[in-house]
């Protein structure tokens, strides 16, 4: 890593440090319904939505009501998105005259975008019509992100409130997230991106004749608007197959840095929102600190690892960046960005459950790719997807409190809420489910010759490719390692099931925990209370995340990235 790379990283940290508190505080006011300036703009729009949908803005829901809302909304979204994909050939706004999408891929894509995974078994420019992109996928980029944030807000309310059965209103939270958080931020971000060269139009693709005499189709579309919400909502489903490596999505080093910031800002800010809503900023800071340690650790390791090259290239090839070797180890990276900023982008994308990528993870060093894999394996909490990162981390905080709380001689409590058998049952389900889904699916796919055939590499690298796909989908990340042709009936179906389970299999227990905590009274703080707002607790939280969640994958990590690294460096 060069000094430049480090400066690049520090600029990003500084930008986050400036914006996270502001956005965090703003979101707290949004979800607490505190009057503020945006009401003038958002209220009229929201009233229309409530009137059309018949939502009573003041009605509160129990956790069951809230969960029913989430499931109903998401279920309908999947059906609608599936229908649009299948029927796009007969629908308007199809300048490229693309036919309807086949059933397995439609299923996979519908689930993928509704679960905020954005795993893409297709290339957008040739498979999806403009209508599907705009009305289907981009809408889901907004609302699937809003669902995640709403669930996190419901969990915060469960912790912040006492002796109540209600957690707020899902429909109101969903609407407000879109109108007050995502739309305004995405609008500003889209303008900034467009000003810096990201394309934005509704025209047909342009065919040009290159100097060498070949024909080249230059794609077009409303890219800047899609790109903004793609990163902001930790979605990652890009309009182009090359995703953020495509110059029309991510043209310059600045847009690259800006998009990295977009990925991270809401997940980190939600930790601040949490602190504000529980009226204890330090509690939010502890969560934020744990997220930051994990993120910075993985980002810096990925950056450092990508500074090295592939030893198989031999001693004659210098791959480290220096005055004479500009860029250094650029295998799989864009020249526009360089090795370290690419690693920073991909590490941040995998840490935030964003499927975006500005370089080819498959071409990373074995351990560099391993870092991306570990980011997802930790359960997307560093800082994780919008909403899902916070609720995942809060669940891990409860687990940490339970283990450590016993050590101080009290029934464990988090923010004055006792963590007991009912919660532990749900926490156990939460912790268990994703490794279960990811590992069972990986084992299944690796045992089937037909599924193995979808791999372009074999041995340790092939194992990593398969593992990566299922870890990515089960954790609703959507990041693709590449090297796996997922567009088969079997993989489309199985990956879809993983995404579905990984999303709603966690949301339901999370809301149940929120409901259970909300009903409880609050035990007042005293010197005997386990402090959960200290550096020690943040460290403990990191330790629990790494040991309890991360170590689960140690055997498969050994057979994948570790073996590959050791064999190539032997």
């Amino acid at each position, binding site marked *: 890593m060069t000094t430049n790379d480090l400066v690049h990283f520090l600029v990003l940290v500084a930008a986050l440090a400036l914006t996270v508190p502001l956005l965090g505080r703003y979101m707290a006011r949004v979800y607490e319904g505190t009057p503020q300036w945006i009401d003038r703009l958002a209220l009229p729009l929201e009233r229309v939505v409530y009137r059309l949908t018949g939502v009573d803005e003041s009605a509160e829901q129990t956790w069951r009501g809230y969960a029913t809302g989430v499931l109903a909304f998401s279920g309908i979204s999947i059906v609608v998105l599936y229908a649009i994909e299948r029927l796009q050939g007969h629908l308007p706004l199809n300048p490229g005259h693309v036919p309807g999408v086949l059933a397995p891929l439609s299923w996979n894509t519908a689930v993928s975008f509704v679960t905020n995974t954005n795993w893409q078994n297709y290339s957008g420019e040739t498979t999806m019509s403009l209508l599907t992109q705009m009305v289907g996928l981009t809408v889901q980029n907004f609302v699937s992100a809003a669902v995640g944030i709403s669930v996190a807000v419901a969990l915060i309310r469960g912790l912040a409130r006492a002796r109540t059965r209600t957690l707020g209103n899902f429909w109101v939270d969903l609407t407000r997230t879109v109108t007050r958080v995502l739309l305004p931020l995405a609008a500003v971000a889209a303008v900034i991106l467009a000003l810096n060269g990201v394309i934005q139009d509704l025209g047909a693709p342009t065919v040009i004749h290159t100097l060498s005499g070949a024909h080249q189709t230059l794609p077009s579309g409303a890219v800047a608007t899609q790109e903004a919400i793609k990163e902001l909502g930790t979605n990652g489903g890009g309009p182009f197959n090359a995703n953020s490596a495509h110059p029309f999505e991510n043209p310059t080093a600045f847009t690259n840095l800006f998009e990295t910031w977009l990925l991270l800002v809401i997940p980190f800010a939600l930790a601040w929102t949490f602190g504000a809503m529980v009226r204890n900023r330090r509690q939010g800071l502890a969560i934020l600190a744990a997220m930051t340690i994990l993120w910075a650790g993985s980002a810096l390791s990925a950056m450092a690892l990508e500074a090295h090259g592939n030893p198989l290239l031999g001693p004659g090839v210098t791959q480290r960046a220096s005055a004479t070797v500009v860029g250094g180890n650029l295998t799989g990276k864009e020249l526009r960005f360089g090795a370290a900023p690419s690693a920073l982008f991909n590490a941040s994308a995998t840490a935030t459950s964003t499927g975006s990528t500005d370089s080819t993870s498959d071409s990373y060093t074995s351990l560099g790719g391993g870092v991306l894999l570990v980011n997802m394996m930790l359960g997307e909490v560093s800082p994780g997807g919008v909403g899902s990162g916070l609720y995942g981390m809060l669940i891990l905080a409860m687990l940490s409190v339970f283990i*450590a709380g016993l050590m101080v001689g*009290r029934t464990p409590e988090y923010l004055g809420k006792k963590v007991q058998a009912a919660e532990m049952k749900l926490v156990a389900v939460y912790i268990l489910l994703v490794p279960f889904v990811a590992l069972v699916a990986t*084992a*299944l796919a690796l045992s089937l010759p037909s599924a193995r055939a979808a791999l372009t590499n074999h041995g340790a690298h092939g194992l990593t490719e398969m593992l990566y796909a299922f870890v990515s989908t089960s954790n609703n990340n959507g990041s693709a390692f590449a090297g796996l042709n997922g567009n088969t009936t079997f993989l489309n179906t199985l990956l879809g099931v993983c995404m579905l389970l990984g999303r709603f299999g966690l949301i339901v227990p999370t809301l149940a925990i929120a409901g259970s905590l909300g009903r409880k009274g609050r035990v007042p703080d005293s010197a005997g209370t386990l402090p959960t707002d200290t550096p020690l607790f943040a460290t403990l939280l990191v330790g629990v995340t790494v040991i309890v969640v991360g170590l689960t994958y140690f055997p498969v990590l050994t*057979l994948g990235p570790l073996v590959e690294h050791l064999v190539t460096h032997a």
Partner: protein
Amino acid sequence: MSPLATPRVAGLSVDGDQVRRALRDAVVKLHPRTLVANPIMFIVEVTSVLAGVFWIKGAATSSVATNVFAGATVAWLVVTVLFANFAEAIAEGRGKAQADALRRTRADTVARVHRDGAVLSLPSSDLRVGDLCEVVAGEVIPGDGEIVEGIATVDESAITGESAPVIRESGGDRSAVTGGTRVLSDRIVIRITANPGETFLDRMISLVEGASRQKTPNEIALDILLAGLALVFVVVIVTLQPIAGYARAPQSIVVLVALFVCLIPTTIGALLSAIGIAGMDRLVQRNVLAMSGRAVEAAGDCSTLLLDKTGTITFGNRRAVDLIPLGSATVEALAEAALWSSLADETPEGRSIVELVRAIYVIDEAVPRDATLIPFSAQTRMSGVDVAGRQIRKGAGSAIASWATSIGAVIPPDLTAVTNRIGSEGGTPLVVADATAVLGVVHLKDVVKPGMAERFAQLRAMGIRTVMITGDNPLTAAAIAREAGVDDFLAEATPEDKMNLIKSEQAGGHLVAMTGDGTNDAPALAQADVGVAMNSGTQAAKEAGNMVDLDSDPTKLIDIVEIGKQLLITRGSLTTFSITNDIAKFFAIVPAMFATTYPQLRTLNVMRLASPHSAILSAVIFNALVIVALIPLALRGVRFRATGASSILRRNLLVYGVGGAVVPFLGIKLIDVVVTALGVH
């Protein structure tokens, strides 16, 4: 000696008999029907049988080295379960020994029962609730009951271990008697209040034996977590085989089971019930009977302690602490008068005056021979002595003042000021006078037991608020509260006040612990989260509380809280230890598993273990041995320090978290050296 008092030795004290019995029980407990109560150990048993079957199936075709390795691994897996059973058995064993001793005292006695006007002789096992029994000196009380007639001294050492007899009488708060105790004098008639099999002694037996042991709320929650972690590793191991198959590194079932058993939290799984039993046992060692483990846990959670002033915070009686001469009297003159007037005074106050004067002032205490003692009378509200022509009187300020006025003695002008000052400090002024003048004032006060302020400070550091309950007026109460260092007090407290205080504390989210003995304490004892009834108290109080202190020592509430906390700390610490252990086990086993296919993995063999076989076997052996090594800690409990949660957490995380990560690296390496020397390769 009482059966409970016999093994009252702190820490681990087990004799050879108990160890032998525990070893036998450890084998008996292998039965799946009993083992299923411990999910972690049950799953270890099932998987080790599975490993055994696969080892035997493949034995004929395997090399000697592989068979030695597989056989030893399977054997050590079974030993792991045996060690866990042994831990539980040894914890139970101590209770069983006590229960046996108690059973001997339950020997059937013959009761003389009044039924339908006749007196029948019935075996105590035929008694029913409501029967009236007559018991005379020398007889054993046939069942739990309440004295309805008479007064007697009773030897309760069978239950309390306290050899001094106690007085039990009808009516009031000392009317309860316990079956199995012996009447030493007089005759009483008792009404039986518990059917045979449900008596206090029966309950005690089942409690110390652990027969009625139910899992506590935190234990259940922990069990869920442990089961969840075990399930995660079931998935990890089951899916590892096909994934390893893809990597051309398939594993034998024995190796997979070994990895599985090492990864699931066996250490805490093995010791969990022993910790619980030992926690209850620690209470029994201190002569406290908890009716449920839930109550012990609640004690650890308590954030408010209600303590009765008298007997808990202060000695039961007022004591003289100072002499204040008034007018022209010297302190010696006052001391002499106070001493003489108190020599015949057998009240605790009187005795305390004698002690004070003897301790501080050099006075010839020989009382002139012609002294006439004037006992305290309700009319004069004074007592005293007439000696050598002097009339010496002591009594309350107003009583002495009116006596002095009536005989023309001098009343110093500052008398009222002094008595008021003492009153405002929470003391009681006792004025001493002779016929010529009022000599001065004896300052009587409630004396706070030594060390109380430090204990309350410790409780405060632990986040526990202490509230003193007293019938005194607010002024007196405030003074004593200040001196004792309690956080708050409730003065002029009625049982209703007490009840309201508990409810308001609970409404604020606090868990409340209290002690009590009277029938009017019963509702509050029932309402409190931890209600410790004094054994000397009424049956109603004992029924209402969830613990009984056999020594009737209210101060013990503080010990109970510490035991409750220690129980949770021990569980949490060993859970953390168990989880962090996994790091080293991963590094021992995983490289070893795949070493044949990928020899490059030796880089991960950071412990430099000799061979894949020795590495896996060493991890399994370490996993089993660590259970035995931690049995003493599980029985004794992790040392509890009365400090805040932050420092306890920091310390225990360092010892059990970081320690748990480091120790197995050393342990496994050491075992590997031994195992290799023994020829495993």
